[in-house]
């Protein structure tokens, strides 16, 4: 998605910013707890998708969630809102 300039020649002449995934870097590194989906429990309600502040959840073909760990900040909203408790938060590095 990124069309960000790589050299100063490619830089725009005005103070225009370029839409870029990861404008603040890989924000997944902010995370302490990692959301893990139990797909056998998931009812594909898409609530976790709509409530994720980071757009880190993709709604797949079958409406089940796919979490992008490069950018998920580990806020835990998806886990808190999942009606069937299909998402658990697990400490990183364990």
């Amino acid at each position, binding site marked *: 998605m990124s069309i960000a300039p790589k050299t100063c020649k490619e830089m725009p002449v005005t103070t225009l910013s370029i*839409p*870029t995934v990861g*404008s*603040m870097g890989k*924000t997944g590194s902010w995370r302490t707890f990692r959301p893990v989906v139990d797909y056998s429990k998931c009812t594909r309600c898409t609530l976790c998708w709509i*409530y994720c*502040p*980071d757009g880190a959840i993709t709604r797949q073909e079958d409406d089940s969630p796919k979490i992008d760990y490069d950018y998920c900040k580990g*806020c835990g909203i998806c886990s808190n809102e999942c009606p069937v408790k299909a998402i658990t938060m697990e400490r990183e590095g364990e």
Partner: protein
Amino acid sequence: MAGSIKELSKEEYLLKGHGACAGCSLAISLRLLFKALGNKIVMVVPACCTSVIPGPYPYTSLAVPVQNMLFEATGATASGVVAAFHRRGIKDVTVVGWAGDGGTVDIGIQALSGAAERGTDFIYICYDNEAYGNTGMQRSGATPYGAWTTTTPTGKKERKKDTPFIMAAHRIPYIATACSSYPIDFINKLRKAKEIEGTKYIHILAPCPTGWRYDTSKTVEIGRLAVQTGMWVLFEIENGKFKFNPPSNRLIDKAKRRPVKEYLTLQGRFRNLTEDDIERIQKWVDEDWERYCKLASNQYV
């Protein structure tokens, strides 16, 4: 109008890897704005958390045209953008002013009032995290009574301004309240506002884990509790006519509303409240509801 979440577009115009704190409801609200209106919009954004979310130049996480503007100038800038589109005969772009509570109820209020008085054809959205967030949580005119901020270390002594009703005094065609915990309600209000000509004002409660001092996972829950306790009321004022929206319309009977204490005690910013304070807040909420109920039943207040 959208009936369910599954009908919403999968397209994202708030790109991941943005600068909002973990668990930020303002970021949810931005995603919902784009789900409602798509990318045929121009946003005017003053200094606020939303001007931090894009990230550093030359990058931005907002994949729609955004005009960043001075803290006090959202309404005036939007008026200029609308006039430019009008002059060029461009009719299919929605202009959206998107500002924080500080930028709306305090410093931006005269520019907003001017735009409303001129009837500028745009949607103005105030996302209300009840403090000056990106400068480190100073109190604003929208900070509620009793809340801790860095400039009210023992709790704010004054009450929150009733900004939707300040806008109602401008007799604009559409005013609404919303909260990202109720996504379909917010999206439908945005889509309705888009179809109305003139100045439209939407005030959203924006739970903020960083400033309100609660766990990041509770953001949606806190917004829901604000509505269920009646501390935040979902309503519309369309051409002067007041109407409750679900689920607030089911809370007219006081017994159906949860005690405000349930909302307050979940948040660290209210930790200094005494029992007397909580009683006072409950009384104010009940009085506000009496006023709203009279408006809903068309009695002059």
